């Protein structure tokens, strides 16, 4: 699992399982990480900005839109840090990929994950939106 040491912390285990599912591109496992009514908030004024409500919107409209912009097989997640306290975790990661129009994408992220009963209920993501706009969306 990405070279992270195994952890007994259930909040960290949930987050690392989610990252692992993303890395393996396992749609069932990705979906199982979320509550049906989960929300994901993305900053800025980009096509993916705002709060996505419900797992279908998160997986389809949000992650799907991002996914269309990159070559899926080129995508690499690297966990930089994971901090957890009770039902909340902060995940810091680096994403590298090749965009569908052939650019190198390399960006770091930090996001709060709020968990409920061992699944993701809310995510608030923070990243360099100017970079995302420029490289991923040609803005």
């Amino acid at each position, binding site marked *: 699992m990405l070279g992270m040491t195994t952890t007994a912390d259930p909040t960290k285990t949930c987050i690392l399982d989610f990252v692992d599912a993303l890395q393996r591109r396992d749609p069932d496992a990705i979906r199982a990480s979320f509550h049906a009514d989960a929300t994901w908030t993305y*900053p*800025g*004024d*980009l096509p993916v900005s705002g709060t996505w409500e419900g797992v279908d919107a998160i997986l389809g409209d949000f992650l799907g839109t991002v996914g269309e912009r990159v070559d899926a097989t080129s995508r690499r997640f690297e966990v930089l*840090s994971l*901090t*957890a*306290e009770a039902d*909340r*975790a*902060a995940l*810091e990661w680096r994403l590298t990929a090749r965009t569908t129009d052939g650019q190198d994408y390399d960006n*770091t*992220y*930090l*996001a*709060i994950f709020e968990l409920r009963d061992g699944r993701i209920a809310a995510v*608030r993501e*923070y*990243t*360099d*939106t*100017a*970079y995302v*706009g420029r490289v991923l969306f040609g803005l």
Partner: protein
Amino acid sequence: MTPVLTRTLILDYVDALQRGDSDEVAACFAPDATWDVPGDLPISGRHAGRDAILGGLVGAVMARLDPASLRFDVTSLTTEADRGVLEYTIRARTRHGRAYENAYLAIFEVRGGLIAAVREYLDTQRAARVLFAT
């Protein structure tokens, strides 16, 4: 360092910021602390050393704002032994009279009871458009 002390240190830092007490803010940082800001903003990159953080970074931001209008609200704080993640919103009026409101999430690495390293994440698009617009 225990999570409680890490939490206390970060809350003390927030309190000093909210009171505008620059000596207390400075006292929260190790002399060789670093602060990383992403993107291509005038403040982007690594600010190395407490003096660079307080002068180069905080000074550059404050020069863009009406200091009396600055509000700093904490959304969440997640702490472990030597690391805390602070989520906060800054609201202020810029020198040009525009309303600036932006949400931030920052990792604070703690060493010896002081902030040793910060990696801050923010909506850089908004900062560029509102805070650093010429």
